[in-house]
């Protein structure tokens, strides 16, 4: 087929009618503090991995809250589990545990 130079973009908007919050719910049951996040970004600002990657725990939390799993995988792969984010979080969100639980959930067959 000749290439006419057109391509189809997948929609970029957040569709809360289609997104399933499976991973969020999995994490929430084991680590309810994920619900306390106020998306302040302290964690991302101090993050070791953010120096060389797009890792932002604020964004990961937000994506989970909105049920957008695709981007979560690539972001959390960058995490070094150093725990600096936990030290600065004003809401005492157990950030490190959340990342471990996300890894766990991503390995499960459903996701």
């Amino acid at each position: 087929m000749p290439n006419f130079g057109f391509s189809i973009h997948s929609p970029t908007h957040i569709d809360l009618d289609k997104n399933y919050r499976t991973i969020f719910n999995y994490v929430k049951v084991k680590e309810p503090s994920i619900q306390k996040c106020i998306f302040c970004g302290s964690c991302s600002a101090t993050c070791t991995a953010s120096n060389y990657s797009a890792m932002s725990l604020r964004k990961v939390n937000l994506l989970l809250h909105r049920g957008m799993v695709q981007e979560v995988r690539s972001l959390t792969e960058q995490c070094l589990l150093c725990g600096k984010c936990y030290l600065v979080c004003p809401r005492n969100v157990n950030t490190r545990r959340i990342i471990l639980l996300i890894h766990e959930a991503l390995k499960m067959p459903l996701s």
Partner: protein
Amino acid sequence: MPRIAVIGGGVAGMEVAFRLSQLSFEVDIIEKSFILGGHVHKWQKLFPDFTPAHQIVDQLKNQLRDKVNILFGNEVIKAEQENTKHILYLSDGTTQVYDAIVITTGFKLFNANRKEEYGYSVYPNVITSSELEEYFQNDKPIITKENRIVERIAFIHCVGSRDEKVGNRHCSKVCCITAVKQAIEVAQRNPDAEIYLFYMDLRMFDRKFEDLYLQAQTEYGIKFVRGRLSEVSEKADSRLFLKLEDTLLGKPLRLTVDLVVLMVGMETAENSIQLANALGIPVGQDNFMLPVNCHSQKNITGNRGIFVAGCASGPKSIGETLADARSAALEVYSYLNCN
């Protein structure tokens, strides 16, 4: 004995009148309707601790009993001043002479029809925060106009506030915490419902407000999304389709809900600009009455013997309104004793 007129029989007017009567002044409340309590009268429970609103109104009414004259169904038509005396011409045809006036005319709720893109009074399942309050008269689950149990609900912050297009640049101050309170009350009635709050900033300014916000997140799983609603449309099944941006993710967001609640803001009360003109008191760009300054003279207007309390000088919570009313009563006392 000096005579004082309190214009407006909401909670501010009731408190000011009671305190002035305690100080042995003769007080008239001039109230345009036939009930006392104003907006609070229509509310069920109050933030942040779910105190029943009627408790506050009943307590204020009991305090007033027999101590204050209430001129129901009355408005000020014209005002004149002769030395220290204020002459008010009332709508019942009488003329009254007072030594001091306290303006407690309060506020009116923003008319949601003016935000056409939100579909109020076009789509039956778009309601205002004040209308939602009527559902809380009992503990039954919240239902749509078609009697379906609400499974998804959206609260829209800043409707008619922080919006220069509708002429209101100001923040109405209490609607953020009211939305959190009402969201919790919905969650208690519809435990399986998904509840979203769409805000620009969450203004949890007072004691216990931040606690209520945390409780909404952790105990009730209420979801907070930063973004201002752009428009509402109705689907064939009468559910509502919302478009906005999740400004923290920087992506457009779409969702379908059963009920939309518009957190309508506060505007200066009906006729209060005319009243301010008649009494020679300036109003601000936001149309609320302007005291001499907002720190140490917030109850004193530029016109001798005329004072202001409560939401007539800008949005306030009930606690703030009552404190403001007591402070106004003391200002009146100082004024009359120094003359």
